């Protein structure tokens, strides 16, 4: 594509690209997200490329590697357009058959079809797969459709049209009004109204203003920002351009975590291409508006996701938060007005401009509009990325889309909002999820990490896990967070080790409230949430640890005693896996674990096909 000199250049180029596209041309889409790559997507893509050449189909078939389709568990995923045949777990050996039978003859290959774990039925088309059928994909619409960096592909699907429309028709104030009217709230955790934040920054005095895109995504269990940057970096950049125009900024910075190499390289390529065609740089599309974007890589510190710590980090300092006010909108990067939004927030903006504030606010709930992407993980059948309207129920996400809990186990809790969030038990399954409803039941939207836990997950252990995390990530600047989380962790470790005493829980609760009210930044303020929410919803489990020295879920090592039950058939499988030779017994006779030698690694429990290994000390004592 040539350099676009004016807005009319852009619009005619867009029309030409749309006219060129033939929606009926067969297209093979291989998912190129990190998950599918880990499962072998690169060699599948290569095999398709070779087979297409070998069969002389280069002109008839389009082959694309796109961003993550979201259904990471079932990778490498392949979709054949226009019919949208869906094949999970494809290998290079399947490629020729797919080309000959599905692409050329329009025939479904039964052997490769997806089997729905809930119904046991084979499913042919992508839109019939329950994981996708229950979703509403707006922000995610391009993932799975376009080549992540190809700017022409993005434009032919309506990309940069929102930005062009803004340049053409809107005053900066009108952009802000539209975003306020749409009701968009920040997707990075806090849920602050986006238009309002832009307005503050627009009104702030400053010779230079900045737009920062927060792609630090430190929340363990969340990976939607990564998928968006990997799969449609242009849509995030378009959102930044629109924000830059509204606020009057000329520089954008994307702060991305170093653990995301593919996101970094795709975004860097996308920036390069946008500069080439005059969608970034000086005097964009001849409009007089200038804006450029650079990438900064994080260096591995969770606290740098917090906006003021992030600014310290890009200024080359230790990433320690600053007290607010002043807010970054007034004094941020280099002391200048700075607007920080999350990746997903920016990716929502072009949609609002293209389809209008009324359309946008018709989706979701009254106070939380639009859709939200959740990263569904943990002990659930279908893991991956799920985009649903705000207000969807937990049950819809975990059971309809996620397919419920595998291996016949029971749902115990859903952890939402990462280290700042809480654990929701069964009675909240029908709660409609939005920013405010979650807050009212002691959880938090956070960045949208949603981790499902079953009956074998111990809630005290989970609380301890999060405390370990925040304790390690606390930057150390303020005492309540640095020392308070340490103290809380010590208490939880004591309880998990079977050394808890009556009164510990009251003490823990008190300390949690102190840390919450006295910490400097969001990290410390929200660090007690996982403890408080589990104390509220699973108090009996804490009490079992303290009073009975028992871990009902069978997870806290110190409280377990491995023991072989009468149902043992003496197959010897456990003897072979035991790393310390602690199991003895004659063939076909009940085996015995020598407690003095057992290191409680759990391998015998996992390998036993007869459920003959128990880990519950209580059961042991009873026998």
């Amino acid at each position, binding site marked *: 594509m040539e350099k676009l000199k004016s807005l009319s250049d852009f619009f005619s180029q867009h029309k030409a690209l749309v006219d060129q596209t033939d929606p009926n041309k067969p297209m093979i889409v291989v998912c190129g997200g990190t998950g599918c790559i880990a499962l072998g997507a690169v060699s599948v893509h290569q095999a398709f490329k070779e087979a297409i050449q070998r069969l002389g189909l280069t002109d008839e078939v389009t082959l694309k590697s796109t961003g993550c389709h979201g259904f990471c*568990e079932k990778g490498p995923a392949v979709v054949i357009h226009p019919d949208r045949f869906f094949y999970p777990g494809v290998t290079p050996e399947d490629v020729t058959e797919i080309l000959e039978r599905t692409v050329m003859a329009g025939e479904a290959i039964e052997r490769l079809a997806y089997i729905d774990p809930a119904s046991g039925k084979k499913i042919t088309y992508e839109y019939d797969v329950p994981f996708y059928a229950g979703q509403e994909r707006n922000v995610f619409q391009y993932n799975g459709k376009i080549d992540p960096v190809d700017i022409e592909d993005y434009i032919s699907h309506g990309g940069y049209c929102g930005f062009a429309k803004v340049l053409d028709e809107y005053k900066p104030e009108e952009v802000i009004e539209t975003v306020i009217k749409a009701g968009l709230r920040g997707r990075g955790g806090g849920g602050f109204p986006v238009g309002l934040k832009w307005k503050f920054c627009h009104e702030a005095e400053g010779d230079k203003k900045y737009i920062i895109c927060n792609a630090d995504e430190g929340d363990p269990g969340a990976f939607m920002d990564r998928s968006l940057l990997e799969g449609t970096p242009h849509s995030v950049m378009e959102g930044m351009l629109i924000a830059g125009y509204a606020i009057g900024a000329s520089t954008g910075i994307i702060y991305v975590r170093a653990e995301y190499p593919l996101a970094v390289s795709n975004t860097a390529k996308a920036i390069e291409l946008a500069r080439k065609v005059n969608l970034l740089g000086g005097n964009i599309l001849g409009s007089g508006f200038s804006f450029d974007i650079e990438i900064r890589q994080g260096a591995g510190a969770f606290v740098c996701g917090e906006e003021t710590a992030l600014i310290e980090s890009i200024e080359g300092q230790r990433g320690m938060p600053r007290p607010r006010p002043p807010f970054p909108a007034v004094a941020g990067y280099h002391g200048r007005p700075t607007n920080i939004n999350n990746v997903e927030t920016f990716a929502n903006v072009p949609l609002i401009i293209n389809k209008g504030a009324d359309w946008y606010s018709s989706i979701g709930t009254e106070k939380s509009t639009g859709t939200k992407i959740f990263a569904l993980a943990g002990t659930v059948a279908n893991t991956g990325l799920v985009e649903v309207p705000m207000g969807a129920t937990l049950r819809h996400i975990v059971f309809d889309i996620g397919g419920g809990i595998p291996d016949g186990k029971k749902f115990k809790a859903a952890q939402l909002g990462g280290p700042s969030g809480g654990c929701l038990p069964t009675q909240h399954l029908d709660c409609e999820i939005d920013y405010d409803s979650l807050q009212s039941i002691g959880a938090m939207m956070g960045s949208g990490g949603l981790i499902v836990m079953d009956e074998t997950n111990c809630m005290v252990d989970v609380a301890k896990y999060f405390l370990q995390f925040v304790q390690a990530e606390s930057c150390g600047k303020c005492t309540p967070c640095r020392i308070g989380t340490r103290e809380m962790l010590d208490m939880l470790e004591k309880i998990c080790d079977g050394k808890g005493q009556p009164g510990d829980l009251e003490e823990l609760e008190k300390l949690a409230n102190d840390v919450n009210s006295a910490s400097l930044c969001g990290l410390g303020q929200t660090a007690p949430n996982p403890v408080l929410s589990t104390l509220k919803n699973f108090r009996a489990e804490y009490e079992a640890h303290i009073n009975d020295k028992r871990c009902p879920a069978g997870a806290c090592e110190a409280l377990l005693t491995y023991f072989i039950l009468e149902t043992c058939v003496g197959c010897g499988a456990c003897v072979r896996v035991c790393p310390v030779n602690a199991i003895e017994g004659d063939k076909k006779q009940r085996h015995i674990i020598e407690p003095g030698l057992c290191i409680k690694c759990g391998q015998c429990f996992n390998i036993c096909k007869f459920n003959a290994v128990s880990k519950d000390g209580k059961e042991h004592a009873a026998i």
Partner: protein
Amino acid sequence: MTVLELLGSMGKVTPGDLIPILQEVQNQYGYLPQGVLLEISEHTIIPASRIYGVATFYEQFHLEPRGKHIIKCCRGTACHVRGGSTLIKDIKNELGIDEGETTEDLQFTFETVACLGTCALAPVMMVDDKYYGKMDAKKVKTLIAELRSAVKETA
């Protein structure tokens, strides 16, 4: 590459660029050698104390040499609830080293990471740039045996 060349390749640098500078040094040397940091301090007028402060704040930076292959295991929530802590133990057992340590032959360094962002495939580990999902004790054993024999072959 000398320190001056390295700084030169980055265009105009200001104290604000300290993190990208350190990232570049680590790319070149595999860790942050003390002498190099002192030289950078001289050339950029960033105080050595500040460089040390930044280098020790971020998990990504290392002041000691590391193994040829970096093995990372996720300790994130999604991995934790699917047996991630057992996986960490298994890797330690197989390698015979603790978290943050390097094997004596300088071949392997083992680290744990807050989240590898591949939570759908939990539990997850990484060897250099390659992800390995849905791991268990058996797969770890095979993987590390393969890595060891690859090391022997190249030796």
